């Protein structure tokens, strides 16, 4: 549940954002950070469908590398 997933904002409509990570798109609520805090192309850390905080592209990339590692181990 506490597993956060970094996603990139693709489109924003009020508090609703369409976000994408590795080709998978999800609706993400911006209600916890505010609709004016992020713009299209920004990265956010997403928890249970809610953006928790904006993050840098660099941090998003590093987080994804961690996921790849864990998923690779878990998939063995």
């Amino acid at each position, binding site marked *: 549940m506490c597993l956060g997933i970094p996603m990139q904002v693709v489109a924003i409509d009020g508090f609703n954002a369409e976000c994408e990570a590795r080709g998978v798109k999800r609706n993400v609520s911006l209600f916890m950070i505010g609709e004016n805090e992020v713009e299209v192309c920004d990265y956010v850390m997403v*928890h249970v469908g809610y953006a928790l905080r904006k*993050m840098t592209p660099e941090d998003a990339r590093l987080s994804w590398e961690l996921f790849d590692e864990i998923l690779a181990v878990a998939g063995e």
Partner: protein
Amino acid sequence: MKEDFTAAKGWLERIGELPIAHPVAVMNVCGGHERSLTQLGLRGVLPPNVKLISGPGCPVCVCPEEDLADAIALALTGDVTLVAFGDMLRVPINAAKGEVRSLAEARAKGADIRPISAPQEAVALAASNPARPVVFFAAGFETTTAPVAAMLAQGVPENLSVLLAARLTWPAVDMLLASGDAALDALIAPGHVAAVMGASEWGFIPERYHLPVAVAGFSANSLLAALYSVLRQKLAGKPFLDNCYAELVAPEGNLRAQALLAEVMEVTDANWRGIGVVPRSGFALRGEWKRFDARARFEFSALPRRRAGEMPPGCDCAAVVLGKKQPDQCRLYGTACTPQNPVGPCMVSDEGACHIWWQGGTRAAA
């Protein structure tokens, strides 16, 4: 992972150079941390005197049996659609032979129970079936509870209600340290809980208990940086609150999320399964949001339960949650209790230490 590993290797070397003459027990209180530590194999590469302990980091594991029994009973009436995070469905409760022991079993008997992965799915489901009561059974720590508060504050259909089993992380750590029987020397604080509630929430550990603490993220780099920090603090005898996840965690946290929590919920004493009541560690809906409380809308049976609040017989989940036992020190681990056939909640949840250790390759008791 290459870049992270290069940085992580540097931290490992620095940790290896520390003069750690006596064993140091470092506790994490986050299932995500435990997963990273285990899957990255960090226990195997640290100096032998550094002992990593998994603490209270699994909300599903401490969800009271009474709440689970209520959710099962409500779903079995057939009058509602019950939604819950997928982890909750297979958590077993103590029940007489032949009785329903989990939400998954209730579902198999025809109860309308659906796993969800986000609060918005509960809203969408309720909106598309306005005549059908939908109950969101919501267990979780602050990272999940703040979104539940946000969901309610933003507005939900009238047919949606919440059966809340939410918990705060730090009060359990506070209780554990105050009890004096916690064999730990330092703490790694949970990165995403801190992103919501603020790093400063963990300042009580050095201030009140004179123990080192560092907020960590989930990469090898961030976890090892935090580990190095607390070991250095321990050796120097100068504990303080360090933040090794500053890219996501501000000292004050996410103020908007905290305001939503404070608006929709109030902090209450709460029961932790197998542990007992932890003061000021739970949430209840407050003010105008009380009407969305499932407990106010439905009759819950007042049947006394013989072993209310306890873990199943022989199960050491409570000791594992409190870091008093490692998962493979439970006598059921890997024999009577496996992910395919779990006895206790720690073997069910993705954030349960037993489940994480099993996935990490530990397949038998020590």
